[in-house]
């Protein structure tokens, strides 16, 4: 191309004609945005009118009022005389704890099933395939209801199943031995978490050094020292006592131990098994996406099979796995709202009760949407960061 004059061509003036693309584009935008604004404005004016007729005041002042709703299964202190705000926070914690534990368990189970599907053992791979097909093709809500009915069908506390000493399964839920936690114990746990962070930093440093000089170094002793030995030593020196509280039957219920409520248990099982079926398929296709030549090449270098899987195959498979896995995590979190069907009091269930008690429909649903949009956005941001970190760095 030969352009002799460096002068830029004059910007074409907009022509107000329907034959001009730019003008047409502008008209389209004005039209669509105009329609959207008119519809939203119309809905809004209707809402304002209806609310004034029903004498419902808008705004979030109701959050400060006494909730008066009982919540049975909570992780933070709550009683019905607390405010709606507190009730919402309890609901949020309930949503987060079922989603977070569900994501961890579904990932573990899904990975196991996905690898099982690729097994050379015909029986194992067939069973994994049947597991995936069955769970994927039945609505999650039906599975939630099914597990809840199964929980209710368990014997009462007196005739509870006792698979191993100290573990009871009855229609009161799952009761396991617990460790009573107080500020001293939390301090030790915090120390261990801190140790884990330091260990992670040391590990990165050592791996970087290995990359530089090719000399393999032992990493695990640092982990043992920082995460287990050091906290244990501090705990012993400070005289922190760790007791195990074994559950026992008193009257019609259990005392001591940790109780997993039947609603929570049913919801968790349903979410984990359902999502694990999808994760299994993602893991399977991810591993299959790694070229067979990678296995052969690693074997030709004389590397151990477990080392090959960990250091060569999985890092490559992860690149294929992470994006669809992210959307499964988001699905699991959103699906945890099915709790409302079996009376587990998550954020949606609390908002629903609030809505019925106060009539603050717009605010309650806005809060649900706000919470889920925030959670979705945080998970996507984290997974995008992780995905970028493990992405192929091409020269």
């Amino acid at each position, binding site marked *: 191309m030969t352009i002799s004059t460096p002068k830029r061509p004059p910007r074409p003036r907009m022509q107000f004609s329907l034959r001009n693309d730019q003008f047409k584009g502008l008209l389209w935008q004005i039209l669509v945005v105009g329609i959207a604004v008119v519809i939203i404005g119309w809905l809004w004016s209707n809402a304002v009118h209806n609310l004034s007729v029903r004498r419902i005041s808008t705004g979030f002042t109701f959050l400060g009022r006494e909730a008066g709703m009982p919540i049975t299964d909570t992780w933070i202190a709550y009683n019905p005389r607390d405010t709606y705000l507190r009730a919402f926070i309890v609901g949020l914690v309930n949503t987060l704890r079922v989603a977070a534990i569900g994501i961890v368990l579904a990932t573990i189970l899904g990975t196991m099933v996905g690898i099982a599907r690729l097994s050379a053992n015909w029986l194992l791979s067939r069973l994994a395939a049947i597991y995936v097909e069955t769970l994927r093709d039945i609505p999650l809500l*039906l599975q939630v209801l099914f597990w809840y009915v199964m929980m209710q069908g368990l014997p009462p506390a007196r005739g509870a199943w006792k698979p191993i000493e100290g573990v009871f399964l009855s229609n009161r839920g799952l009761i396991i031995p617990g460790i009573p936690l107080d500020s001293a114990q939390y301090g030790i746990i915090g120390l261990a978490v801190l140790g884990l962070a330091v260990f992670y930093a040391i590990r990165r440093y050592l791996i970087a050094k290995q990359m530089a000089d090719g000399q393999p170094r032992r990493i695990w002793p640092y982990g043992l020292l920082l995460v287990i030995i050091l906290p244990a030593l501090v705990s012993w020196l400070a005289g922190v006592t760790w007791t195990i509280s074994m559950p026992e039957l008193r009257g019609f219920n259990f005392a001591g131990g940790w109780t997993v409520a039947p609603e929570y248990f049913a919801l968790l099982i349903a979410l984990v098994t359902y999502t694990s079926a999808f994760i299994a398929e993602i893991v399977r296709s991810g591993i299959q996406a790694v070229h067979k030549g990678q296995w052969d090449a690693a074997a030709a270098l004389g590397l151990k099979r477990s080392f090959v899987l960990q250091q060569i195959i999985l890092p490559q498979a992860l690149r294929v796995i992470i994006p669809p896995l992210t959307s499964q995590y988001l699905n699991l979190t959103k699906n945890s709202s099915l709790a409302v069907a079996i009376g587990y009091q998550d954020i949606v269930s609390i908002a629903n009760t609030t809505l019925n008690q106060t009539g603050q429909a717009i605010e309650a649903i806005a809060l649900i949407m706000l919470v889920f949009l925030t959670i979705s956005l945080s998970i996507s941001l984290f997974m995008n960061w992780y995905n970028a970190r493990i992405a192929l760095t091409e020269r």
Partner: protein
Amino acid sequence: MATLTDAPQNPRPAARVRTGWDANPVLRWMRANLFSSIASTITTLILFVVLAKAIVNLASWGILNAVWTVPGNDTNACRAARGIGACWAVIPEKYRFILFGTYPFDQQWRPALAVLTFIALFYVSTRRSFWRKELVLIWAGALSLIGLLMWGGIPGLPFVSQERWGGLPVTLVLATFGLAFGFPLGILVALGRRSKLPAIRSLCVLYVELIRGVPLISLLFMASVMFPLFMPEGFNIDKLLRAQIAIVLFAGAYLAEVIRGGLQAVPRGQHEAAEALGLSYWQRNRLIVLPQAIRHVIPPLVNTFIAFFKDTSLVLIIGIFDLLTTAKTAIIDPAWQAFSVEVYLFVAAIYFVFCFAMSRYSRQLEQARAER
């Protein structure tokens, strides 16, 4: 390219002579697939024992010790077998209610016919020879026929209000109409999201991300609780229709993302060539780009359809009588209350048949493409 030379053809290796148990193809297969190593042998043995036990237990619960019929509503036989055998007697007793809800009993051939029409419609849509413009007409015709059957209102077919609809037809109506209206909506939004016009693009992004970011339940709550609030005073529409609108909006957002994937797979040259021919924006998309884009994404479209076919069951929470709600209502009857597991298994089987057929179909499409 390799040239044909007079080098000797690879001689076929002489067939190995197999002797002993190795001659038996069944045993050889078992050795290769079940007992190839020590670990594999242990796995096989453990799984075999567990599986055998599970099958024996299930068979004795579901078949051998099951109660198939009881006289009238007398469920004593079922109660006696509780925990040992299934009570399948609940199914013949309740299946009409589970399948068709409170639809007038003597008119239930109409929803049954509607279900068959749905199945025929799905079947026709999966045939490659029907992937033409006429398919739109077939859909319009079939959906009108279904509306006529369900509502009636002409001589010979007494009118049945949609408040009395229930069961499988409602599930199919919600999913199919969700697809029928969500699909064009999805196409528009997908095009809008790829548009060069910033205002339209951001509106479409906002819509898709907002809908996909929140659970379907909150949309259904909105439809059931907030919708009347946003309408002029005194104006109200039926609950089923409101849920249907929510499902259409939901489906539209998800379908838009799938279609957008297809649009991205169409090479730029196709756009430019169409533009060079002097086609307008709508002509370009309708005649050139969309037909290619949609063919690319038929398997994920089927998967999306399976997903929101299952998700229609969430209308249970706002009290609409779909298949799952009728099942749950059927066992409120005190005589049958204890046998919900059997009813849930029955309904699960119905959902499974529909979803499994669709997912097999989508896999066939993918394989056919991989082979091409």
